[in-house]
């Protein structure tokens, strides 16, 4: 029983570690994209948020069309 519990605990711990690692990679990728395209901040800044990249969504903070709003 103890062996079984140990094995299960190890599996869960590995799972958590993999999850954290994957999340870290996703966030890291995202920040690279964000930093790499800092000029893409599409002049839609306000105290509330930002608008990114030129596209077709109307930035609520300004009069330009953008890819997404944060």
């Amino acid at each position, binding site marked *: 029983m103890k062996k079984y519990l140990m094995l*299960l605990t190890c599996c869960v711990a590995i799972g958590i570690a993999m*999850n954290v690692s994957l999340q870290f990679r996703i966030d890291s990728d*995202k920040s690279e*994209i964000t930093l790499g395209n800092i000029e893409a901040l599409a002049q839609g800044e*306000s105290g509330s948020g930002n608008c990114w990249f030129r596209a*077709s*969504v109307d930035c609520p903070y300004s*009069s330009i069309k953008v890819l*997404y709003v944060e």
Partner: protein
Amino acid sequence: MKRIFAVVLLMGLGFTVTSCRTVASAEVMVFPETISLQGKEKTIGDSVYLRYPFRVRLQDDVLYVMDIHTAAYYIHLFDYKTMQHKGSLAHRGEAPQEFLSTENIRIDEQGDVWTLDANKSKIVHLMKEEVEQSRQINLDKDLIRTLDFDRLNDSVFIVPDYTGQHRITFVNAQGDILKHAFQIPTFTEKQSTVVLAQAWRSFISYNPQLGILGMATQLGQVLEIYDLKQDTVIKIIGQETGAPQFVNRGGYAVPTGIMGYSDIHVGQKYIYALFWGSSFEAIRKRPDDHKEGGRFVHVFDLQGNPVRQYQLDRHLTGFHIDEEQGMMIGLDVNSNQPVVEYVFNLD
């Protein structure tokens, strides 16, 4: 030992739950059939570079393409048979006759071309020769950021806007408000009407013969059909399941759901709407992998019943539908040759 196991198991469950992300559903409508369509590129010469073509119209073999992120002219004219560039309209700039934006192209029965400059709050009758002065209609000051328009008749325009007090407004040829109609079909309460109007920003199309107005949400999957002759609502499709998702951030609507529709056409038999279905979460995570545009054309009958959907071989941002000929011209902003022609079967 058991305690350690319990703690680790709870942590595992916690991580599992928090790492689950909501996926925007694009399956709020069921169509009886799906038909795949293959497009044929129409090659434009090097004379014109289109940055973000968003609207296209065909009238008497002249193709009008509107580029919303242009450096010079917003609208370009091509001979549709040869794709030779014939001219350009609506020069970008701050001078009185110039444009800060264009939202759509409308062509009236006389073949005259109209556009809307949301940033200058003007509807403009464009002259095909640059030497002629365009006719400008200043929209009523009570309208906030009018983002689309269509013609009700020779002297009245239909416009949605950001006031959010009403769904649409009718303005006369001087730009004055004549009357308002309908309400934003939301179940959301306790939100400012301006925020709601931003979230429910919709594209419109009016069929003057039938008196039917179609509205399609850009930030959700709702299609509204109104009978303007009877002043009645025909149908609201996707009102609950497809309502635009957003958060109110400092009095602004920040979209959090999906890119829904980007163009709509009310024909004589059917209503056509160009659907994207991309989630903003996915776009934010991978903006470089994202393809702009929709690969689905949703077709409804005039009562709002789903008829079929066309699945396209590329992503389109805008379309022109010729229902009589069974032909669609689309704009693929991801390609260097954005003009694409599709043929669909008539029934």
